[in-house]
């Protein structure tokens, strides 16, 4: 390789082997990554909640970057109707659990990455035990109840949460519960009335929108893992993408709220509750089938 001398200067005194240097060379010469960053990625354990439109690019980019352990939770199976936006699955995986289908693609892309699949509904009963096995959680789910559940569980287990969402031509990204920043409930103490929630199955969603938002989530995850002081992690800020207008807006949001029921000064929620009842909706889009 033309750049072997350049890479070599970055890779003294490390514990990466030659295979890893060959694979990650052009990544670890990126300023603020370096060998130290690559070793942090290798040691990191990230849980991805949802193996759908957002979960696919999140998983593929984190696997490609060399995150050592990726957990994937999804109870659903691959359908042809997913493939217009879920680029981590294949036609041949129709009927296969999404977490297994995505883990198989990850293995083909980067066999150095370990995956843990959870082919189950993420509920108040299962969430804490699963999350405890990881350092960082990515919310790539598709419904309100799961979003409250994931956020509360991250507060209770003290894990940063990289949250993305999308619908139609729009997407939103932010990081919760990071460095004393706000949690989902700080922003949204009361769930939205069920009739105001548009689901992807009703409103549609475009593949490149989840591609943009999922890629943004993957990068924020890498920044949290790398933990460089100059990393402008998207905490206390919300990024909004309007794909039809081709406009991004990054807005300042409130800090951690003393009055928050789960992360505030006098929390009243000290264990997980029934989120389907709280939100008057199901843990999954397709549960209404």
């Amino acid at each position, binding site marked *: 390789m033309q750049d072997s001398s350049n890479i070599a200067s970055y890779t003294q005194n490390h514990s990466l082997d030659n295979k890893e240097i060959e694979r990650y060379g052009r990544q670890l010469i990126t300023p603020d990554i370096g060998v130290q960053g690559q070793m942090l990625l290798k040691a990191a354990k990230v849980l991805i909640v949802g193996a759908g439109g957002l979960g696919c690019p999140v998983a593929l980019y984190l696997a490609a970057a060399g995150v050592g352990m990726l957990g994937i939770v999804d109870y659903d199976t691959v359908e042809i109707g997913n493939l217009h936006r879920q680029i981590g699955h294949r036609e041949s995986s129709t009927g296969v659990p999404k977490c297994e289908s995505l883990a198989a693609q990850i293995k083909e892309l980067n066999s150095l990455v370990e995956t843990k699949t959870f082919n189950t509904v993420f509920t108040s009963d299962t969430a804490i035990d699963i999350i405890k096995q990881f350092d960082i959680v990515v919310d790539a789910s*598709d419904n309100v109840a799961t979003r409250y559940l994931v956020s509360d569980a991250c507060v209770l287990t003290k894990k940063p949460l990289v949250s993305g969402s*999308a619908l*139609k031509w*729009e997407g939103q990204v932010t990081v919760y519960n990071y460095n004393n920043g706000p949690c989902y409930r700080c922003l949204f103490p009361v*769930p939205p*009335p069920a009739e105001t*929630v548009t689901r992807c199955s009703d409103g549609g969603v475009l593949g490149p929108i989840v591609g943009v938002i999922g890629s943004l989530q993957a990068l924020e995850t890498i920044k949290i893992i790398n933990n460089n002081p100059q990393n402008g992690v998207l905490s206390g800020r919300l990024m909004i993408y309007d794909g039809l207008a081709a406009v991004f807006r990054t807005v*300042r949001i409130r800090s951690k709220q003393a009055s928050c029921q789960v992360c505030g000064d006098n929390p009243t929620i000290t264990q997980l509750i029934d989120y389907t009842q709280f939100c008057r909706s199901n843990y999954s889009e397709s549960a209404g089938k």
Partner: protein
Amino acid sequence: MKVTVELSGGLELLFDKKKTHTLEFADKDEIPLRDLILYMRDNLLKERAELFVVDNTVRPGILVLINDADWELYDGIEYIVKNGDTIIFISTLHGG
């Protein structure tokens, strides 16, 4: 006074599918945000007002931004809107 109101996350569907509205109040040089929200409900919304306002404030799940910052960083609904302000209403998305 002139106020720019922007809607996103699907809220624009309640407002004639228009994402940006410019409101002029010839007789005022400021307006409480609370009154602006009720004005929007009564004058710009044609139907299903409960998808925007509940109990005289925006319904749960809507973030309100005053010049690109969360209204909680100001006085929330008590904020006094001034000439040239941009108020953004964002419905949070849940899909993926």
